[in-house]
């Protein structure tokens, strides 16, 4: 089936099974491997992408569900000023270790800051709660988001 959606600000048109998870389509059909597969069951957030500005686990989402929607993966988001701010903050705050959670974590932070540019700690924790990280102990990621929010300067 022909499926059309906007991916990283460009229109893509694919002939795929609409039930195929978006994650598989991104990684296998389109070679966009920045989105990670940690569990395939919507539990870890490593596969998080933005669909119409909302954070979604792409491993559970059938690609048919994004028809005519806007999908943003780390490959698209890294072109933005908002990404630069977040990547700097993540690096400075020590929020990156093995890095497997990081693209999803950065997109989760972006989704939060887009709707709330000055979140408090509780709001940050709630917004990131669907993303697991086994390396950092998590608090340093919270600090990274706080740092990015404090510095602001980007249209989230």
């Amino acid at each position: 089936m022909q499926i059309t959606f906007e991916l990283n600000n460009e229109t893509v048109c694919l002939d795929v099974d609409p039930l195929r998870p978006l994650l598989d389509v991104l990684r296998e059909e389109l070679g966009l491997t920045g989105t990670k597969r940690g569990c395939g069951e919507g539990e870890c957030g490593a596969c998080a992408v933005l669909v119409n500005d909302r954070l979604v686990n792409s491993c559970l989402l059938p690609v048919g569900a994004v028809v005519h929607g806007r999908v943003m993966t780390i490959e698209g988001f890294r072109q933005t000023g908002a990404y630069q701010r977040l990547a700097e903050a993540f690096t400075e705050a020590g929020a990156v270790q093995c890095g497997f959670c990081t693209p999803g974590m950065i997109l989760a932070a972006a989704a939060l800051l887009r709707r709330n540019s000055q979140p408090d700690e509780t709001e940050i924790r709630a917004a990131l709660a669907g993303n697991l990280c086994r390396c950092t102990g998590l608090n340093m990621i919270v600090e990274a988001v706080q740092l990015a929010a404090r510095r602001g300067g980007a249209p989230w």
Partner: protein
Amino acid sequence: MKPPEHTATPGNDIADPVARPDAAAKCAGTARYLADLAVPGMLHARTVRSTRPRARITSRRLPPLPAGFFVVEARDIPGRNRIRMLDDDWPFFAEDIVNHIGEPILLVVGPEAEATAMIASRVIIEYEDLPPILSLDDALAGLAPPLYGEDNCFAEYSFHKGDLPQARRAARQMVKDGFSTGFQEHLYLEPQGVLAVPEAGRLTVYGSMQCPYYVKKAVEQAVGEGRHHVRIVQTVTGGAFGGKEDYPSLLAGQAAVAALKSGRPVRLVLDRTEDIAATTKRHPSRIDFTTFLDENDDLLGMDVDILLDGGAYSGLSSVVLQRAMFAASGVYRVPHLHVHGRVLATNQVPAGAFRGFGAPQAFFAIEMHLENIALRLGLDPLEYKLRHALRRGDRTCTDGLVRGAVRLPEMATRLCEAAGYPAKQAAYTAGQGRYRRGIGLSLCYHGCGFTGQGEELIQGTIALHKRADDAVEIRVAATEMGQGAQTVLPKIVAHSLGIPLDQIHYENPDTDIVPDSGPTVASRTTMIVGGLLREAALDLKRHWQSGRVMDIRRTYHHPPHIHWDQEHFRGDAYPEYAWGVNVVEVEVDLLTGLVRVIKIWAQFDVGAPMDERTLRGQMEGGIAQGLGYALWEKLEVDDGRVQQQRIRDYTIPTFMDMPPVESGSVYNPYEFGPFGAKGAGELTLVGVAPAVAAAVQQAIGCPVDMIPVTPEMILRRIRNRKHAKPDSEIPPESSPRSRSRADT
């Protein structure tokens, strides 16, 4: 000509944090993990696994295989069907017998991943069940035929210090205590995976791993020694924590055989359910103490019995047991000591390496035991612990010398002030109402580097390669798996050479290029590998000739004062020790049994930090894993089957669970470590569980003798309060039970 004298950070200390060299690619999603690699003509492999804990395979029936699909099994292995580890019992593929649920029987390999998985799900294996050993109790009862050797014991050791029978006779009091701990799953976020690529006469295996040379030796054994040039390349590794120390050897051997059979690249990536069900776990333990106190209530003697559940194959169990045994009496001076340990075989998922490597089990037990003794005596636990803590010049449990300063007292004092420990400790004992607070404290150490004779056996070798453009390449087998090796090791070299950090290059290891500096385990990378790199860098600096290519190699030998007798477990079990203190405050809801962790305070002595931010990452990350181990990470194996098959069933700490952590370190340089560094990676996990358990114990007023401390267990303890007192007999001579127990 000399190198420029200015460093990248003139006047700055090596501890000042620098940007991680790997952060940019990891943020941007351009870092290539194993599953991100695809090569032309690549095939996908899917594992068919045992569904029985112990059985003979009577037949296997394959569905019709479409063109291009094939299977790989034990008989396809051109070399030996044994993974090269410490022992020789673990096959790449089960032969006629399966020994645990999840054990690989064969691979289905084909050009499409989904079709491969579909075919694998339709392979029918028929079994004839054999009597399984499904628990430590089963193993102790010895009713089923042994899985390993005659006695079903992967390893059994004991060692003595002083004269325990004499201590028993002289004792005024005896205290007995027993503790148990559960499995722990690593749950690195990147599942395990490898990609084997055959080329003419060569075989390259890429993979997510800690120990490229372990994998190389395993693959060589699988494909036949000397028949192919085997090359191992580590890919960006998404967390490991010990879980990628042993198991990648198995996966790499399987994929290599599949690649040879087909002549095509074969990728084998586990899905999460397989990874949880089949890869190694932290050893469950039971640890029992019989401790003798003198007339001043001081520790006189201790008899410790350690039992570990090793699962179906021996793997690294014997060394895990040794590390547990060398931690059995904790940070304490015990004049008369006997430690006995065993690892038993069971028909369960094999246990293996996990950050701490036996020490977390032992420290949970000894710290709770000391806590209990102090409380029984009506003494303050911290005071009692510090009274017996090792000091410089004391002898360790194996009669090694404590050479470095032990700064536990000031670390503990500092933390207790920050946490308000004494006041809370006093106030919380008399808690009232539904929500009860508790505060707990633990002291721990971690032996840095391999246990016992390990470093001498491995003789890690490193190389520095100076290019004509005066850039310097670090050539070591040490892997970056998130912990920060690629941050720390280049800093050590840059600071030693006095050249800018961006002139140092350190790629993921490729065994065609790097010598075997040993595995990335045992908190040895900074101290041992970093120490060799510093020596080599200083040598390079002395002979530096700008514009010339230069190569320097160094091989590790213990400093001359280190002596170890492996047969009797006597001497310096480790070249040096790192130390830690943890304080944890909790609030327990007596109605639901739920524990809320209010805050964690921690102080560590890692010698000297090589990068403050990287160290903090190790502290925060290790503490989080320790907290999960203490409270939430329950992995049960019933009838040989891992019950928690998915991430949702196995609770690691989330953003909502993590309390504030206030961590720091003291400067206590180690003479033989680079810039004074000791190890840091494992230490930070080791002491968390006992501090949590002591806090919960205080809050609920009932003994906590097992982890994880689940709400169910808390409610059960509260209900059974009246039965739950630790038993003790005074004096020991009058108790036949204690005598027979102590005589074993």
